[in-house]
């Protein structure tokens, strides 16, 4: 899980152009530029990073970074 967060932090920093540190409880409210448009840019970047594709339901349904990391972890097990 730690490794996932490390890589997520890298992706977040790339997308938002600033040094952000995310944890399980980080939400879109915590990062100023994280709106519904940037959300999808972020998702695409994460998909590229981990080499997976989320379903539309997952994309719209994530409530915080924790849920996002869970999905990534679950996908890798399969």
């Amino acid at each position, binding site marked *: 899980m730690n490794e996932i967060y490390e890589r997520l932090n890298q992706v977040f920093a790339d997308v938002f152009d600033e040094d952000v540190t995310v944890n399980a409880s980080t939400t879109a409210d915590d990062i100023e530029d994280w709106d519904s*448009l940037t959300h999808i*840019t972020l998702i695409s970047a994460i998909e590229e990073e981990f080499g997976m594709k989320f379903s539309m339901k997952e994309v719209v349904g994530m409530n915080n970074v924790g849920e996002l990391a869970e999905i990534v972890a679950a996908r890798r097990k399969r």
Partner: protein
Amino acid sequence: MVFSSPFFVYIFLPLLLLLYYVGKSSTWRRGILLVFSLFFYAWGEPVYLFLMLFSALINYIFGLLVGAGKTPAARKAAVAGGVILNLAMLGVFKYAGFAVESINAVLGLSIPVPAIVLPLGISFYTFQAMTYVIDVYRENCAPQKSFPRLLLFITFFPQLVAGPIVRYTDIEDQLEYRRVSAKEINDGLYRFAIGMGKKVVFANTCALAAENLFASTAGPTVLSSWAGVLFYALQVYFDFSGYSDMAIGLGHMFGFTFPENFDHPYISKNVTEYWRRWHMTLGGWFRDYLFYPVMRSKLVTKLTRSLKKSGHKTAAKNLPTIIALTVVWFSTGLWHGASWNYVLWGVYYGAWLILEKFILDKAYKRLPDMLSTIIQRVSFVFITLFGYAIFYNEKNLFTKLGHYFGIGTTGFTNVYSESMIYENGLLLIVSLIACTPIAAFIMGKIRAKLNVSLGEEKAYTVDRVFKTVVIIALFALCTVRLAGDSYNPFIYFKF
């Protein structure tokens, strides 16, 4: 049939409420709503009623097909089929004439233009129905097995001909079970009365002011153009948000909760915020069903990858958003009407959103707060008004737009323009205040005070009595105004 008409208010609605509440069973109530919804639509569009029924049937079948698909490929094929059929219907009935006219204009041909009258509400119900099929595909909901239930969702009269755009997932559970009591009726009637007041008192009056300013016999001036479009902006807001209020209120009376559609858009600081507050269900629709798919399409993903590989990191990050926003806003414009001024209007807003996101927001951050706020607010007013100038002028667009900059006018101002503005000065001030959340804010304060001083139970009774008085007063006022008014169409009926 128009909500703000005596027939609707004094015959259709009371009769429906009575029949709805005499029967207790859910089936009876759904049946009554369905029959009245079909009658409501047939009142204005007897022939196109069959088109709507056909659309519902098609989407019902495709919903089942998507749900029954065993493999991802089968499901994809079914959803694609459904989307294509919906768009084809919309294309034929809304855009065929426009397409032929455009082809003729570009190629200098004279292919006969098909004379198809736009079916009432087709843009709204097609989007709603299509969304249902896509949501089944995305597993946001199970396919609806009962045709009458799906038919009720698509034809349900409060949300049928204009916004808010209600998704199937919004009311899926409510089609089965609804909470209804005197409280729901009271709240619903209150919301309906507020909406009717917005429409009959404000929108219709602002419409008249706008028309008088635009149709000045003394010739257009710069001032009459800007003042006219200001009244038009107010008219559109009261007209459309009033309609949404009425729709939400009507839904409430029958135990349905519709999504909100407006959140005081004119107090926005910039275009980005404005589109989060204006026609919210349409913005949300384009985000979930067009922006996201375009962003996630194979083409865009490939483009991003190759840009990244060749070292263009910033472009790789931003270009997909710019492409998707352009597609979305071109479509939003076209959705509003089969005419190039709507397309231009959409692209105009798309361009502003892109500018704000990638350039202006960063620039404003470097300025002192106060200065940046002033610049943003002032420019927002002019951007919005000029947007409406594009939106309003289906004919002679560029001649009309010139008037805003003194091209082709008889001067900056004249006696007629000024007297028109003086005459409507009070209306302007009251309307502008009514656009803000001030009234809601004061009401909230009073309610909180009463809760403390009277206790919750008594405060609740006071609230009910107050709402009932407002309902009666607004119904009376609107009835009187409607009796003497000949101007009462809803703007969004033509979309």
